[in-house]
């Protein structure tokens, strides 16, 4: 099993969720994060003092997937999250050693 973790732009979240549910993904976990990267930040001005805010609001989606679904999921995310501009974000893939569904105690693939 793999954990796919994608940092994307906020306003793409809904599309990504749809793309994922369309290919049969049944669960995901979403976290508000701040991203620092090539995308330049913006200036904020408070009483004339300017701050460069380099950490931009992003959203992170974590999806546990069985190996065989990995490519499909990666493709779905990439396509739905893409706007073509800097700051579209990144997808990270980790190995996932186990998954347990708390309610039932199921483990592994069935628990996803």
């Amino acid at each position: 099993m793999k954990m796919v973790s994608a940092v994307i732009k906020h306003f793409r979240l809904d599309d990504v969720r749809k793309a994922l549910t369309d290919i049969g993904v049944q669960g995901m976990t979403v976290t508000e994060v701040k991203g620092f990267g090539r995308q330049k930040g913006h200036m904020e001005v408070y009483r004339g003092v300017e701050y460069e805010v380099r950490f931009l609001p992003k959203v992170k989606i974590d999806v546990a997937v069985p190996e065989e679904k990995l490519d499909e999921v990666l493709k779905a995310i990439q396509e739905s999250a893409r706007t073509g501009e800097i700051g579209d974000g990144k997808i990270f893939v980790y190995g996932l050693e186990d998954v347990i569904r708390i309610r039932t105690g199921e483990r592994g693939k069935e628990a996803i």
Partner: protein
Amino acid sequence: MMTIVRNSWIEGLGKGDRAAMFLFFPVLLVLLSGKAAFAAEASKIDTGDTAWLLVSTALVMVMTPGLAFFYGGMARSKNVLNTIMLSFIILCMMSVQWVLWGYTLAFGPDVGGIIGSLSWLGLKGVGLEPTEGSTIPHQLFMMFQGMFAIITPALITGAFAERIKFSTFLVFTLIWATLVYDPLAHWVWGGGWLGDLGALDFAGGTVVHISSGASALIAALVVGKRKGYPTEPIHPNNLPLTVIGAALLWFGWFGFNAGSALAANASAVNAFVTTNTATGTAAFTWTMVEWLHRGKPTILGAATGAVAGLVAITPAAGFVGPISSIFIGAGAGLFCYYAVVILKPKLGYDDSLDVFGVHGVGGTWGAIATGLFASSSIPGSTDGLFFGNPAQLGKQLIAVAATWVLACVVTFVTLKVLDGIMGLRVKEEEEVEGLDLSQHGETGYYL
């Protein structure tokens, strides 16, 4: 005349938006020479009436920030400051416009029933003694009316919130105030033809609410929908802030309506009682209807219903009795609920914060209801249809129609012209990023 002057100004400034707002500063120079005339003696002032009008003026002032919070809480987090700012900057800008040329256009010596003359430009001749038949200083009347001139354009901002270009908005507001509000106030209260006709508008159902509600509908249509509307969910960012706003509106509205008696008298008391009763009824009605219709009573519904009630009772406040105000409030709850919840989705326009549904519909209902429920048993009132005088309803309908026409036509033309010159909306990426950052370089919360 004034339009032409203004348009040439705008053309020159089209490229440099920052500078576009200095429109009225030159007028100051003209005014420096003609110094205002003040009468040292304040004869015939009634201190009680003056005290009440001073307070009422302050109460109406606080409605504009109240509106800013009411609207601001409903916007998305990324637009909360901009939404507040639209009302707040109007409070600042119109405070000056009114003193310079707004008051004289609205209340200056009548010219053909249509507009006030320019003879009170810069408050020249508007003194501290009461005018004939009044018990409060003339300038106090001016200031009280000024607060109405401030909040009216602020009401419209709910229609194009979350996408309007800030510079264009400022120019639009100045033009709208000058070409819609000032004449309309003159027609109804300043000695103009609607007042002469005998149309009743105690505290601004036509002048304030229909004018802003109708303009809001046009503005929503011309400016176009927010990106993502209505498919993306748009959650209010801070409903407690919205309730703070609704509370300040309710509180301030006592000055708005009861202050419109221009004295601390029976009429003021009547307006106070009907205002509170209609508002409570409307809010309660909205909540109950929502509960039946959608399964849950919401606080946003209660707050919206309260504002709808306040709007609807505005033209009627000093002309109808408390029991009538219950019916007016219940009608406001029902009709505005229908407009906001059922009509708007059907018609598909994006009036972000429902200015048309609440002020347009509520104001129209209130103006008509005044013609139905007005009763000559209230001091200073005449009878309406239900008390045997159907003619009054006719007058009310003329006032409603005239207001709708003026507001819609001028708003449409102004927005179309400004769209060509300056552009109405922020860029799409600015809208996505949020107007707080793109227009103001600020972020609402770092909690």
